[in-house]
């Protein structure tokens, strides 16, 4: 397939996707809009995974750490903005759970009600929470990335380190109950308010807030990987040593894109808090992090759009099947089966399938040179695969 045609088809795919999510409200009730808003957030996670896994070759099994970090940062601010926080007899907001966890006689003030509660103080300003929702994941990723990429850790070892990290952080968040509310997470949050406008999760405006940010992230990420740096990144994924001998400081590239991916995941975490109104340490469960990876794989890990659509699609399918009375118990088995089938028969995910299909159609159209060989009657040699 010629390159320009390929590019045009890709632009068409992006445009179609964007158009669909923008006109969706015309066809969906407010419940589905809220639900899709959540799935768009998952789609953003798909983008983050495709960027780190597909483009950088870094399989992060701890993406939940960044999602969780983003979620908690904004949730802390929204918790302090919640009217119930103020209604506890103190002049300054104090999260209700800190009262339960406080030592008897402790001052009812954010500075010192429990050990470490002062960490919450800057979050009284929602802007700080929103800023930290991206800054903290980026900082974490930057730190982790700098260490592991300088040490030239790659492949499954990165996966295990990120996995151990997310498990470690999750353990600490649960254990630091006095300042995190432990296992129960943060609920009873205020709605995000910008310029006096409250983003009730069941408003059209909230859907468009999420959709708009997703579109911006999608386009931004797509442009980023199309840069020269993005090309270098793919070269590094391919053969990091070769890239070194060309003079590229490999860890810098890896860390940069790892951090960008983390920032996107953090942003997704924040948006999730806006639409779901809670933050929970289960965001840092291993299963969630693996599930995200599966979404991206189904959609196509080498395609930002594919991974994004994969996440949205799987969640939509999951919801539909699990809400079909017949399948209430069996839906998970069906999902499991879908994963297996996709990996076996669509090895590059839906995006890869779409590319192959369009290549085939185009090949049909300008028949003649380079028509794909027919597979009829060929001996298959297993060992060669």
């Amino acid at each position, binding site marked *: 397939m010629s390159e320009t045609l390929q590019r045009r088809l890709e632009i068409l795919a992006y445009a179609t996707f964007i158009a669909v999510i923008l006109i969706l409200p015309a066809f969906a009730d407010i419940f589905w809009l809220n639900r899709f808003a959540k799935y768009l957030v998952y789609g953003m996670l798909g983008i983050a995974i495709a960027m780190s896994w597909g483009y950088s070759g870094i399989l992060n099994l701890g993406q939940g750490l960044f999602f969780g970090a983003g979620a908690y940062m904004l949730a802390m601010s929204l918790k302090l903005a919640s009217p119930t926080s103020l209604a506890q007899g103190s002049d300054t907001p104090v999260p209700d759970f800190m009262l339960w966890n406080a030592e008897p006689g402790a001052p009812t003030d954010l500075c010192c009600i429990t050990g470490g509660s002062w960490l919450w103080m800057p979050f009284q300003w929602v802007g700080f929470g929103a800023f930290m929702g991206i800054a903290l994941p980026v900082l974490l990723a930057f730190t982790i990335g700098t260490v592991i990429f300088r040490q030239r850790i790659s492949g499954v070892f990165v996966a295990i380190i990120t996995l151990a990290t997310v498990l470690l952080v999750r353990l600490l968040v649960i254990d630091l109950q006095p300042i995190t509310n432990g296992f129960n997470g943060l609920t009873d949050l205020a709605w995000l308010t910008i310029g006096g406008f409250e983003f009730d999760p069941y408003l059209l405006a909230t859907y468009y807030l999420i959709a708009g940010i997703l579109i911006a992230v999608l386009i931004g990420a797509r442009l980023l990987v199309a840069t020269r740096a993005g090309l270098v990144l793919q070269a590094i994924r391919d053969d990091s040593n070769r890239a070194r001998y060309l*003079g590229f400081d490999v860890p810098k590239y890896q860390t940069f894109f790892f951090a960008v991916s983390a920032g996107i995941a953090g942003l997704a975490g924040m948006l999730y808090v806006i639409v779901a109104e809670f933050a929970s340490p289960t965001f840092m469960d291993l299963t969630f992090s693996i599930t995200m990876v599966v979404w991206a794989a189904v959609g196509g890990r080498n395609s930002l759009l594919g991974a994004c659509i994969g996440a949205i699609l799987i969640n939509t399918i999951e919801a539909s099947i699990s809400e079909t009375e017949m399948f209430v118990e069996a839906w998970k088995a069906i999902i499991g089966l879908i994963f297996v089938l996709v990996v076996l028969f669509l090895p590059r995910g839906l995006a890869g399938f779409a590319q192959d299909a369009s290549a085939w159609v185009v090949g049909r159209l300008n028949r003649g040179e380079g028509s794909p060989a027919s597979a009829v009657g060929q001996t298959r040699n297993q060992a060669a695969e």
Partner: protein
Amino acid sequence: MANKSALTIDALEVDFSGFKAVDGVSMVVEDGELRVLLGANGAGKTTLMDLISGKTKSTGGRVFVGDTEITNAEEHRIARAGIGRKFQIPSVFRELTVRQNLEVSSIKRPGVLANLGLRFSSSQRERVESILDEMGLVDVANETAGALSHGQTQWLELGMLLIQEPQILLLDEPTAGMTQAETLKTSQIINRLKGRHTLVVVEHDMAFVRQIAERITVMHLGKVLAEGRIEDIETNEAVREAYLGSGGIH
């Protein structure tokens, strides 16, 4: 250190748990010189290149590019100091297309932020196209490099090196797996580079060596066995014995 020398190697050695694959090698390559490195299989030629390019860390001795010491520096620093390398087992970005391989190699400012732009300059593009043409890779420019044959991969790697334009090129068996005609073409390319670039070439193909050689260094068992012009080497009995066999350099 003499100012004119491009590459200075001073008593370099590496010890692999007791086995010294390179054992006190000293060598000065002048600016613009082409140096051929000969030696038996296992003499330490590739290892010497590994040491220069930072792939292997030395356990003794020093390496300079011009006046800059690069001993055991990180690979990308050595590369930025002006050393480019072609590997014995050709090493390219197998999942990128041939053109993308060349594009990546054409990037001059290696930082992340410097490369956040979308486009390559038109001079870079032209350079890529002309290298594609020169290496005979135009037909496969949009193929992924992993699908190339061995020889095509050799050409591609050579092309990447040319477009990278390092001051010093280390070429490890650049003609392995090429036909005589192809070898001839390679030697022409290399001869064109002489003077502008400093080259260190490892080869076993004596016909090729004859086409390009100025000075030759012969290694044996990790040490320098002989150094000199082609005629000196050809007639050196020790070299004949250890390496050349009946044919000589023909």
